[in-house]
């Protein structure tokens, strides 16, 4: 009785001590509450992949009823905010300096070519230094012209057959980018608390020698590590909950899945996240190095290699392999699904299994390097 109950008592005392220590540290509050709020706020308002009205210049090299009608449909488009001129040179400097993102040119012989059936051409000049915006301007310009023509042909009758395409975007019919950015940023917040904060705190203990002091007590290395991360596990879940509440009530992101799935996924994600934090701190024993490593191996990959902003399928093969060991890669699509689609358990279970596997590897490595340091 005594041996195991001693053990439990010791462990409980350790957890209590670590929890006090975590809660009393001002940087804990900063990372666990202030930073998540800032991040969520930025993703909710600042980063938007929706193309709102893009400023373009429209050059009308001739003014006829036909070109005016076309110009009117550009002006009516909700994708463009149009300034008109007769001469393209007016806009060239604006395009260089990024004040406009494109120049649309309706050429001088447009009306006669159109009447003669000579396939008149509209030039769409865009700022290629912003490839994404450039693509959108090209596509929307093309779409606007096609629409204009379709309406025109419908007026002229003949009812020419085209294949009309009906698009339906499931889960997010309005294509609001906030709806997938906000759930994704919750994963980034948990990476911050789980990996960055943990690695900093534990590295500081190594720096100060308090980790060695703890090792000298009867507590085993495993108990020590678990006691160390337990408060951060709870803290991460609390800050995740805060983010979810904000996402739903402030940003109006729909929540179609279950709370159970949300917590199951988040808790599982914390296994690799905390494991990585411990591993980094044990390997570096230095706050500066730990912060840099956490930034480079956890925060940036969660941002860039997780499918959060950039499509993994489009990356070169070697980089796609790297993404397989980024835990956020598995959490982000699952979180987006919990919010927007609902509970799709086969997908969740698969993600959770992989995250657990990665987490186990991190933990074993962390435990190994902790023990080694003592021996």
């Amino acid at each position, binding site marked *: 009785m005594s041996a195991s109950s001693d053990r439990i008592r010791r462990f409980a005392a350790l957890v209590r001590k670590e929890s006090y220590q975590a809660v009393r540290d*001002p*940087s804990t509050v900063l990372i666990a509450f*202030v*930073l998540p709020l*800032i991040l969520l706020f930025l*993703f909710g308002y*600042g*980063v938007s992949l929706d193309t709102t009205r893009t*400023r373009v210049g429209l050059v009308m090299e001739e003014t006829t009823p036909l070109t005016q009608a076309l110009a009117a449909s550009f002006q009516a488009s909700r994708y463009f905010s149009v300034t008109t001129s007769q001469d393209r040179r007016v806009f060239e400097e604006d395009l*260089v*300096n990024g004040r406009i*993102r494109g120049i649309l040119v309706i050429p001088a012989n447009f009306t006669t070519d159109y009447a003669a*059936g000579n*396939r008149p*051409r*509209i*030039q*769409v000049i*865009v700022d*290629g*230094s912003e*490839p994404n*915006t*450039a693509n959108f301007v*090209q596509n929307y310009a093309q779409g606007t012209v096609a629409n204009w*023509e379709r309406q025109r*042909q419908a007026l002229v009758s*003949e009812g*020419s*057959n*085209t*294949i*009309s*395409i009906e*698009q339906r*975007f*499931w*889960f*997010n019919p309005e*294509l609001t*980018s906030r709806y997938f950015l906000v759930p994704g940023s919750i994963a980034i917040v948990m990476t911050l608390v789980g990996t960055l904060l943990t690695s*900093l705190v534990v590295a500081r203990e190594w720096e100060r020698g308090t980790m060695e002091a703890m090792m000298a007590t009867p507590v085993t290395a495993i108990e020590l590590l678990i006691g160390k991360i337990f408060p951060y596990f709870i803290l991460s879940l609390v800050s995740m909950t805060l983010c979810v509440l904000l996402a739903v009530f402030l940003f109006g992101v729909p929540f179609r899945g279950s709370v159970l799935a949300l917590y199951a996924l988040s808790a599982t994600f914390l296994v690799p996240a905390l494991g990585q934090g411990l591993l980094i701190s044990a390997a570096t024993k*230095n706050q*500066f*190095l730990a*912060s*840099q*490593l956490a930034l*480079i191996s956890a925060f940036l990959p969660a941002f*860039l290699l997780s499918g959060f902003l950039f*499509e993994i*399928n*489009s*990356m070169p093969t070697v*980089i796609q392999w790297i993404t397989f060991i980024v835990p956020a890669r598995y959490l982000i699509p699952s979180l*987006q699904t919990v919010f*927007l*689609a609902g509970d799709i358990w*086969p*997908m969740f279970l698969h993600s959770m299994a992989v995250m657990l596997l990665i987490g186990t590897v991190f933990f074993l490595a962390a435990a190994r390097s902790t023990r080694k340091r003592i021996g």
Partner: protein
Amino acid sequence: MWWTRLRALIVKELLAVLRDPKSRAILIGPPILQLLVFSYAATLEVRNVDVMILNRDSGHWGQELVERIEGSPTFRRIEMAANPEQVRAAIDAQEVIAAVEIGPDFSRGIEAGTPVDLQLILDGRRSNASQIVSGYLTQIAGTLAAETPAGKRGAARTVSTIPRNWFNPNLTYQWFMVPNLIASIALLIGLIVTALSIARERELGTFDQLMVSPLRVHEILIGKLLPPMMIGLFHITAYILAAIFIFDLPLRGSLVLLYGSAIFYLASVVGIGLFISALSMTQQQAILGAFLFMVPAMLLSGFATPIENMPEWLQPVTLVNPLRYFLIIVKGVFLKDISLAEVVNQTIPLCLIAIVTLSAAAWLFRRRLE
């Protein structure tokens, strides 16, 4: 005399950062890794995606459409669905990003010259990518439509648009990414090195020793300012070389302008770092403070999304962000050969930010002394 003192301080600062092999490694290794990984990874192009087709048409045109989608290089795998339930399951589990549903009357309608509908179902959880996929599919269907009997009749009237991409004719994504990385790596390194330098001394207690040395406050400040700027310039130079020789970016403008403005950019970054440093009592606070500045700075710089897409009340916040100005300069010098006037326009705010943050840092240090 003062120069000897200052030089000694600069050498000491550089040694403090570069002496330790681990921190030397962290200043050199990860930036290289970041450049290679992120410049290739960060692409908003969509390639190699899987799509599903539910073909309920038995005629020629439905088959023709399927073949054209299969022939498109954008898609990796084309799965054929037998029923709508399969489509739903595949989209739900994100096995495919889009599904095309060809109705039973597709071929009959085309032969008869009546309008036909084609349904696209797309995954709104990845709305950005699915919009691009929708664009590709629409284009394939559009080409097919032009070749139908009715389409051929109307074809002569079609107005076409000719794309012209200035500065980056093939819209190569790396041409956009690498300049962004040049500006952000300098921010990352400059900020962290500076923010830590004073905090570390304070934690170790050597800062007080520095304060009682013959060095004046402004000398200490300059001594703390120059070494991180030198490290930042080293990184910028390495990245510029990589941009030209590895990523084949055209260098259309003048390097002199780029370096000239880089000095002001680094001064403003280091100024912010010193300011954070002056405010924080421990290394941990300095690291977190730097981080707290860096993340919003990256997100509100025009790097991830154009500033004009942000809500109007948020746009003024970007005015105090040095990264915003330097991004325009780096991209401008590499791709657009921007004029001296435009570079100066962007450098003046950098200069102002540097003056404000450096004076604030000096003021904070003086106040600490008293």
